[in-house]
């Protein structure tokens, strides 16, 4: 951006988000799709303007003396607070733990900021905090600082949690979209769509024969074992809102390369697919909380896959595609019937459809 425009922005002369189109924040601005990205690209990035933000990765990696550190933050506003497989507490801990792991770091310390709504039952808070303790133990991190605020009744969804995390880099690799190369193999750590459907099930009152649980889990253990095996990993990205599709599109755009995947190689449970069919959702865009994609040098792909499959969180790991030399930032997919289509970013959240 030109310096004049930066000054303009800093002085608040003109808001970069076209106000005539979006005078207010919409839910979609938090959906992880195009509008979220617009907010980041057009408002936050230019204003704060530094190479860490420009790398557009899950966390920031910086150096103090000879030690490389990773730093991340995430906020949790999920409704319902409790769902099969976890709650807002487990999400808050694992979310930041995973973001650090995606930088290639060993997660060490977390902070937790609570915004509580007046009237929240104390029992609810107790349950959430206990979940956080269990999740922190499982992920081998410590909660070392925090803050609590209370807002008036009606001004919050019960609990909002923000966590920030710090970790250390023990690998010499630079793990980020910038390191992605044509020919890199893309591995997916497991089946998709469980978290989003687990949440939707509670919201929409869908019953299950066997309950679909969220896949919320800390993947740092698995990632660290892959780094310790000295596999040449170029990029990692955990799948959250926006699903597998959004993660791949983000990386393709940041790396300015093409990605080609095969629909037949993407694992998804049958009941998750059934729920997606009823609601008219595409599993590619449904949220996950314990899955990641790994971009690895082709000569290490097989070893990487073996290692993942030997780990409880990577049993269904699959090779789903590769990076192509096209510098177009597009993700393409070979469909089940053998034709090719583009996988795009959604503008906001998927809405249940009838058509």
């Amino acid at each position, binding site marked *: 951006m030109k310096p004049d425009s930066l000054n303009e922005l800093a002085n608040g002369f003109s808001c970069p988000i076209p106000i005539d189109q979006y005078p207010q924040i919409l839910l979609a601005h938090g959906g992880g799709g195009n509008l979220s990205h617009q907010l980041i690209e057009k408002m936050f990035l230019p204003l704060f303007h530094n190479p860490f933000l420009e790398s557009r990765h899950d966390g920031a990696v910086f150096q103090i003396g000879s030690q490389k550190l990773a730093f991340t933050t995430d906020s949790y506003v999920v409704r319902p607070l409790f769902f099969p497989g976890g709650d807002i507490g487990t999400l808050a801990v694992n979310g930041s733990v995973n973001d650090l792991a995606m930088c290639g770091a060993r997660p060490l310390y977390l902070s937790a900021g609570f915004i509580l709504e007046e009237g929240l039952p104390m029992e609810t808070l107790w349950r959430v905090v206990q979940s956080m303790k269990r999740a922190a133990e499982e992920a081998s991190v410590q909660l070392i600082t925090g803050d609590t605020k209370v807002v008036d009744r009606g001004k919050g969804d019960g609990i909002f949690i923000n966590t920030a995390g710090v970790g250390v880099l023990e690998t010499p690799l630079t793990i980020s979209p910038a390191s992605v190369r044509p020919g890199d193999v893309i591995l997916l750590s497991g089946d998709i769509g469980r978290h989003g459907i687990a949440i939707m099930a509670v919201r929409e009152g869908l019953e299950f024969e066997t309950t679909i649980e969220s896949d919320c889990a800390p993947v740092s253990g698995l990632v660290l074992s892959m780094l310790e095996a000295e596999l040449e990993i170029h990029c990692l990205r955990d799948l959250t809102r926006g699903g597998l599709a959004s993660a791949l599109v983000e990386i393709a755009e940041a790396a300015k390369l093409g990605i080609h995947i095969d629909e037949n190689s993407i694992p998804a*449970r049958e009941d998750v697919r*059934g*729920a997606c069919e009823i609601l008219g959702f595409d599993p590619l865009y449904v949220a996950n909380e314990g899955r990641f994609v790994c971009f690895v040098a082709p000569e290490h792909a097989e070893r990487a896959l073996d290692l993942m499959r030997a780990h409880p969180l990577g049993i269904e790991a699959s090779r789903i595609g590769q990076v192509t030399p096209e510098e177009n930032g597009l993700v393409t997919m070979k469909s089940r019937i053998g034709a090719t289509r583009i996988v795009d970013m959604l503008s906001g959240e998927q809405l249940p*459809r009838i058509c």
Partner: protein
Amino acid sequence: MCLAVPGKILSIEGSDPLLRSGKVDFSGIVKVINLAYVPEAQVGDYVLVHVGFAINTIDEGEARQVFEYLRQMGELAELEENGEKEVK
């Protein structure tokens, strides 16, 4: 208009024909669906469900027809091709 999904009836309840409903299983997801428009449907039948209503039962015999047709037309086409080759 369009999105209708096949599911299997697990149970039926309600004596009033308009309010007749049932639990329908969609590959492991179970939802309560209004069955007023498929009065002849029984437990174990597959129905086509659109916005919470079963709009028809699925005829399992006819379901194979898509593949039967493919097989028949495929064989026919091969015969025709061979016939043309012979003529040439």
